[in-house]
């Protein structure tokens, strides 16, 4: 197992080496800066694969646990661990950062050093969120991610980037306030931040409901659930490609992860009590955001709204409270990170060439830019959930599980699949088919770094789509463990 040699700390803090190195490099040496960032994240990704390899899926509890004193006075520990719920997010986070560096290779031209510093910092915070088993440590990473994301959206984003980044920051900061108060209150009641101790503690029902709402508000803003989703279309749309990919790939997964990790085990009674509320909000998100997609005339905005719709499936699956749906929801988060991240990368590729995201600017790209059209097709179909792609597995499991516990909601949510097919295919038709527009001829072919960023995503789309058993087996025992709290 190698539990004692601090693999989790190594994965978590490895990007720090890159950050320190970058500080000492002249800001004019762009190539050196990019190479260092690339190598550091590549090694970090391999370390996380190593972790995945040695992870034992049959153990429901935490593995590779590290526990050291952090703030002894508060009884707070530097406490890390992975289980079946979090294990897949670690490689996803490191992979996303790695691919973000590749996809930004040509598109980020100014303040290069700051950009890669921010990306590496984001990497630490993202991995930290998924590893932390101490509520204070979790909150620490949860909030720390705001700093680099604020800068990434605000400095390298599109025309309305400043409005978007302020909205993003203040929205999520607002949500987190309630999480902080809830965490402090839990500490006040039980005198510990330790997740493993807290799951066995009970609360009076009134307190539990309030704590649940405090956590839920923070997670719902991040996910984002309807009606607190309005920051997301702005932030996604205006962020640079790498920012959109991180937002779609990891940041909004933190909310869903938090729900599985904290809401269900810590507050089972309140979770049960609030099921109708969350299911209704999820279905509204699925249908409303899906319909909103049909109206969009901006490529990124459309994909952003589709994120809201897809994340509606995730929250629906989580609060269906049966193993199939929860496993589907976790897998769907991974899928969504891959597929939507890849779609944003694709949009970034074309945006770098044409400098517009307006859908009606495009048309007939399939004949003028065929390789690109093929990639986009794969991700479109995966987003719709075509059998054989990863999207199918996730959505199918969620709907199946939801049907077992709530037939009406499952039926309503299933309409979201149809809407999804409608908006994605309509988008594909508008951008890639029809008569090619004259200004779309002679686009620069895809560059090596872009291909290197997108091809792994294609690989994972089919890997999860064709052989989901490996990924589902990883989480089975841990998910069953979570559901034990509901019996």
């Amino acid at each position, binding site marked *: 197992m190698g539990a004692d040699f601090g693999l989790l700390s190594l994965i978590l803090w490895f990007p720090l080496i890159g950050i320190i190195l970058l500080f000492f490099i002249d800001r004019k040496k762009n190539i050196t800066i990019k190479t260092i960032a690339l190598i550091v994240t590549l090694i970090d990704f391999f370390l996380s694969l190593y972790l995945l390899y040695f992870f034992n899926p049959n153990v429901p509890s935490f593995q590779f646990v590290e526990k050291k004193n952090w703030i002894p006075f508060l009884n707070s520990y530097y406490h890390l661990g992975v289980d079946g719920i979090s294990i897949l997010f670690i490689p996803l986070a490191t992979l996303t950062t790695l691919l973000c560096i590749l996809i930004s290779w040509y598109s980020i031209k100014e303040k290069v050093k700051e950009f890669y510093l921010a990306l590496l910092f984001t990497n630490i915070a993202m991995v930290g969120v998924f590893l932390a088993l101490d509520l204070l440590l979790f909150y620490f990473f949860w909030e720390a991610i705001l700093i680099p994301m604020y800068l990434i959206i605000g400095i390298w984003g599109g025309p309305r980037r400043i409005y978007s980044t302020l909205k993003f920051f203040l929205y999520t900061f607002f949500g987190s306030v309630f999480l902080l108060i809830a965490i*402090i209150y839990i500490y006040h009641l039980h005198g510990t931040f330790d997740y493993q101790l807290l799951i066995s503690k009970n609360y009076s029902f009134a307190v539990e409901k309030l704590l649940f709402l405090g956590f839920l508000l923070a997670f719902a803003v991040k996910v984002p659930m309807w009606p607190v989703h309005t920051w997301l279309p702005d932030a996604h749309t205006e962020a640079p490609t790498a920012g959109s990919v991180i937002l779609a790939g990891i940041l909004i997964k933190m909310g869903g992860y938090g729900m599985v990790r904290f809401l269900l085990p810590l507050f089972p009674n309140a979770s049960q009590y609030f099921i109708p509320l969350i299911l209704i909000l999820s279905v509204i998100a699925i249908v409303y955001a899906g319909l909103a997609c049909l109206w969009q005339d901006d490529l990124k905005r459309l994909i952003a709204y589709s994120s809201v719709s897809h994340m509606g499936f995730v929250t629906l699956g989580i609060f269906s409270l049966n193993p199939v749906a929860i496993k589907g929801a976790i897998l769907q988060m991974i899928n969504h990170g891959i597929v939507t991240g890849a779609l944003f990368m694709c949009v970034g590729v074309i945006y770098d060439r044409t400098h517009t995201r307006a859908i009606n600017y495009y048309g007939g790209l399939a004949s003028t830019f065929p390789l690109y059209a093929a990639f986009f097709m794969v991700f479109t179909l995966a987003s719709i959930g075509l059998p054989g792609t990863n999207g199918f597995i996730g959505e199918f499991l969620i709907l199946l599980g939801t049907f077992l516990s709530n037939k009406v909601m499952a039926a309503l949510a299933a309409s979201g699949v149809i809407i999804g097919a409608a908006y994605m295919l309509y988008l594909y038709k508008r951008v890639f088919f029809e008569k090619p527009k004259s200004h779309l001829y002679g686009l620069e072919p895809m560059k090596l770094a872009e291909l290197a960023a997108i091809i792994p995503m294609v690989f994972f789309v089919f890997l999860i789509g064709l052989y989901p058993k490996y990924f589902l087996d990883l989480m089975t025992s841990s998910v069953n463990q979570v559901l034990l709290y509901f019996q």
Partner: protein
Amino acid sequence: MFLQLNFQQIFSEIFIIIGASLLFLIDRFVKFRSYAFIFTLFLLLFLIVALFLTPFGKFTNSFSVDFYSATIKLFLYVGTLFIVFVFYHFLKNHPPLNYGEIYGLVLFSLLGAIIAVSALDLVTMYLGIELLSIPVYFLIAANGRYLKASPEGALKYFIVGCLSSVFFWLAIGVFYYLFGTFDLKNIFLNLNTVSQKGILLFGLLALLTAFSIKMALVPFHMWGPDAYQAAPIPVTAFLAGIVKLAALSALVKVLVIAFSPLRFDLPNFLIPIVLLTILIGNVLAIKQDDLIRMLAYSSIAHAGYAFLGILSAEFYGYAFAIYYMVVYLFTITGTFAILSYFCQVNRAYLSIPNLSGLSKALPSISLFLLIFLFSLAGVPPTAGFMAKFYVFLSLVKGQQVLVGILALLFSVIGAYPYLRVLKIMYMDPLPQTPRKASYGLSFIIPTYFTVFIVIILGLFPNLIAEFIQKTLFLYLSLLYFHF
């Protein structure tokens, strides 16, 4: 009554007096302008060393060297040390102000701070607070060469300072009427004998008013922005950091020694004041275009956050209030060191819109300012977050959950002014490249050290927080349980 005079307890204070007086005496005869800085620097280093050598004990019954005063003194010395570097950097670039008297006034003010936190009776504490304030009036007015409004700001501070003294005397009078003593410990011992609780609370209210004027709490905050803006930059740092820390520590000392049984009555009238302080400070900071004025309003809000610890009515809430002020002291010192650099490059940079795109021209300084501002906003991994966390933790422990939620919501508003500065620095275009100005050690030492402290305290907050908290407990237990 026999008075025991232990001069060994106050030899460092005597050194401060001699040193500061010497600066006043010889300043006109020394051609080498940096002498005063070097002299002050070595004096402060000597004081820090002397701190560890001075035995604990009392000089008369009203001045003591003990755990509490030694701890606070350490922070005051270290903070002043950094601020003195900022003074040197600032004065070097503003020769008309570059006189040894400036350092002399700083030393006298520091002496006042030390007396205030070491005092064991109310009159000595009053003298300390006055000595803390009076040199600052002059220091603010010293800026008159550069800013016409400077004497106005000083006069405003002077007048509210007088008001503060009036309230302080009122409080002392009331307590003398009730207890027949000025001594903090005797007040505590006689507290149960008082039948007129209304008058007692009135005296306490007057005392809190006196201190809230010094800390610029609402509704006595109006002088703050004017005085901050009027003062030379390092004086503003001194005013925001050292003066507030000293005043808060003195207040905590009075509250824990003399009035600890009354601590549950304090929230009744403090809650609206503190919440309004946070809200008004944060809201008014939003629209400010002047960087110092924005920081002045944010400083009002930060004093409010520190007072949340006192609202908690728990002893470690008091300790964390001091911790909050210590973190704020380091953060604001670093911020003002950077402001002093801006001043050196171009005075126009003190206006927020003029900072546009500055991160491109001054990347590392912008990064430092970013760290400081995020620390002020309270975002991890900076010290500001942990300081806020401790304060809110003590609030929840003290059963003031609703106050905590409101204060945290106000801190969301409070994040905006800092984000705005960062937005302008990082996200707006750079109109023209500013001329380069050399850094110099006097800039590097305060900024690099404070950045380091802010990050280290963000990652390992227990280094100082636990130290202060243990100090307070140890101090109280030694004070009351060894007789």
